[in-house]
């Protein structure tokens, strides 16, 4: 995952995503997902580019930046800002919370020195909070990049994160 994206790279990602998911409105979520997956975040310019590819007012479909932004900002799985090399997400929902999640979160904040949504100055970490990931039975849950960790304790936090450079 990188902080810088070239114009061409972005165009290529969008083109591939639209080819894969189609150019209708219901494809917006997966298209945004592809971009977020590829870049770790959704750059502002991407919204305008997607809009131009999908707009067909004569079919009664008019897409503006506001539509895309509304979707992109709604889901916790998308980021609208560039992110660090590694993304740490913690679950903030009640089931995780009550089995020790609160302490894990505190430890994460302290260890990384970040509030949710922030990226570390060295570009290594970005911290996000997310809602229930559906695996409450192993809570508290954190996710680093694509790896899921259950039964996390404050003590385990630094060990888990040490694996990511």
């Amino acid at each position, binding site marked *: 995952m990188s902080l810088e994206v070239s114009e061409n790279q972005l165009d290529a990602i969008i083109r591939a995503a639209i080819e894969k998911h189609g150019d209708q409105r219901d494809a917006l979520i997966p298209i945004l997902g592809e971009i977020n997956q590829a870049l770790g975040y959704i750059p502002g310019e991407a919204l305008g580019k997607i809009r131009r590819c999908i707009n067909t007012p*004569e079919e*009664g479909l*008019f897409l503006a*930046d*506001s539509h895309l*932004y509304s979707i992109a900002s*709604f889901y916790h799985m998308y980021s*609208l800002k560039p992110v660090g090399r590694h993304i740490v997400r913690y679950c903030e929902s009640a089931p995780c919370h009550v089995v020790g999640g609160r302490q894990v979160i505190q430890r994460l904040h302290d260890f990384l020195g970040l509030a949710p949504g922030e990226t570390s100055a060295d570009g290594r970490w970005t911290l996000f909070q997310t809602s229930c990931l559906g695996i409450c039975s192993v809570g508290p849950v954190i996710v680093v990049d694509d790896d899921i960790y259950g039964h996390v304790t404050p003590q385990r936090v630094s060990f888990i994160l040490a694996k990511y450079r």
Partner: protein
Amino acid sequence: MISLTINGQTVEAPENYTVLQAAEKLGITIPTLCYHKNLSPFGGCRLCVVEVQGARLPMTSCVLPVSPGLVVQTESPAVIQYRRAILRILLTNYYDAGYKRTNGKFDLDEDNELMHWARVYEVDSRKFMAKKPRFPIDSDPNPFVWVDMNKCIQCTRCVRACAEVQGRFVWSQSYRGYKARIVAGADTTMLQARCESCGACVAYCPTGALDNKMSVGAGRADRLIRTTCTYCGVGCQLVLNVKDDVPGGRVIRVTSNTDESVASVNGLHLCVKGRYGYEFIHSSQRVTRPRVREYLLDGTPRPKERGRWVEVDWDTALNAAAQGLLRARNQHGGQAIGVLASGKNTNEENYLLNKLARQALGTNHIDCCSHIYHAPLTEGLNEALGIPAMSNSFDDIASRANSLLVIGSNLTEQHPVFGAHIRQAVLRRKIKMIVANPDFTNIAEYAALPLYHRPNTETALINGLMHIILERGWEDQTCIAKHPNGFAEFRAVVAKYTPQKVAKITGLSVEDLYQVAEILATNRPTAVLWSVGLADPSTGRGNVQSLANLQLLLGNLDVPGGGVNPLGGQNNIQGACDMGCLPELLPGYRRVADEAARAQFERAWGTTIPAETGLPAAQMLSAAGQGRIKALYLYGEDILNTSTLGAQLRRDLQACEFVVLQEILPSEATRYADVLLPGVGFAEKSGTYTSAERRIQMIHQAIEPIGEARPDWRIIADVARRILTGEGRSIRETDYSAWDYETPEQIFHEIAALTPIYAGVSYERLERGERLQWPVDTAEHPGTPLLHCGYFSEGQARWTPVEQKPLDIESSKPQELTLV
């Protein structure tokens, strides 16, 4: 019909009604915030909850469909408790920094809907309101829209208004939970998010989170005066908010008209010009005292540059104007005088200018900007189809056309509110629109196919489309059989315009031409819309005749959703033409050359009218330059800045012996005037305008004339009276020979008496809110939303073969001009 019970009363409601609407039918008000009857339902704020028998929880009535046997309580104790709780929650996220001037001093905003309901349900807003802001106050640089998201309650009315009214999709509700907020575009400024500053979101916001920036702190209005917008031919109704803290009052803001008993084209919608373009009313530049040149007072010959201005009293100025005109008449005859009216004047004023010219002065040299850019649009139409105006109505086109051809019109900028209606027609009804214009225009975003043809090749383009229509057998045989006049000649000419040839002339592709022809032929009715983009002096008339041919060929005339629809540039250019401010026409489109028509006005006005047609504006002015016209009376037209012939016109005006100018703001023409008569803006007088769809509407005086300025109808009458009592001038006393009007309404009576298409129109009917589109034959006639072709030509239309003119490179060179 579904029967249900609300507060113990039984009501029958249509199936698609909500409980809220059913309650309204009974006259029961349920409080709402996120609901607005013009917008799609949202069901987010929950203030409209009601108790439904058998339901566990209160239900939101704005989205609850009626169902048989439903028993509803709208004000039960439980519901009231619930509403109070909701209001308290809304208030905890609402912060008011206290910049509204509510009772004369800066304080909390008490006038918005949230505060209203808090008062009604006795929730102490000061107690529950947020104690500190979460967002910057005035957070967007938009010059007209004030944004203070601290007052936002997330009702999303702005989101829906921008999408469903203006069609710009600037706002969205983004993020979620506590962080949820209203965001412009991709969290940019409004303008970057494509805002057009129409103010619709402001008009619909129930809390003042969005407000009118120019008047946030201006306080409450003392008076609300409904009037007609003065900017374009859509003719929107708007409300001038007047404060009486200065003598005569001042306009502090413009708001939407909410009086539904008044027929209006725009509902709550306005555009940036109508809603925010009112500052000129109180401009410090206003001419507020009459002026004459010093030489006129001294009785000395006119110096070359006309000499010094002297401010004088009205009598002196009016006498000087009348004497100058009279002198020209007595020495050189009436036809040595020209009168220039304007499509910005009221009908009453334009009628009087027409009477001034033809009766008091005895000249047919009267015109308005019409001959500079409007006449080609309507004259060609009158010749071909016998109608000099839009055949169909705005709402008819937006709701019934199945396809549109928009040509030579920058629709969303020239006629913005109608442009927004068209956007919605494309989005909601999925109608096909072809936009043909040499340059990109905003409405082309919504086109099924935008065409960028070479400038001035419209005739070839339309001929080419008709060629294809005939080749494919798509023509309407019935219509051709009904109007056979000239068809054979027409067909022969169109036969020459093969798609290949047309592609070469226009620069379009053969495939596009076929596709356009097919879209139009298979999506009838098609409404054709055009504007001044087609009005090139050399090709305008032919372009319009070609469009008339196209509509005859496709059978799109005399049908709802079709028709030929010229959209004039100025708000009342239609009225100016109706009132006979044209060198060849008397009021009501009767020809000067027609003896019977002349005789009628001669009888009415007690004088003789020259039989010879007058000169159109540009020639009138060049005749002044050459000394054939000795005096000019100019009112309402900033001629030097709206014509491409500016430099020549300056010389012409400079050369003219005597120029009377009636104006509200100094214009360049002031330099060339000898007498300056200060008139007033639309807020300072009453009268009528006729919109592009032939709809006659009132303007109402809201404030007193500024300084010594006078209503323009009064000025014209004052000059005319002085001319008629002057030396060497006498007329017979007849029904309408006099100029003793005391109100614009008296002038309108005279118009109605002498102009058959206006015969049934009266202020009384207009004040009642009636929708009156001419022809209105009698006081009972309902007006004519759909004007049939042949109205002015015994029911007959004529096919006019039109050839593409060789391209005149000179005339399409860019010229310096200022747009007003």
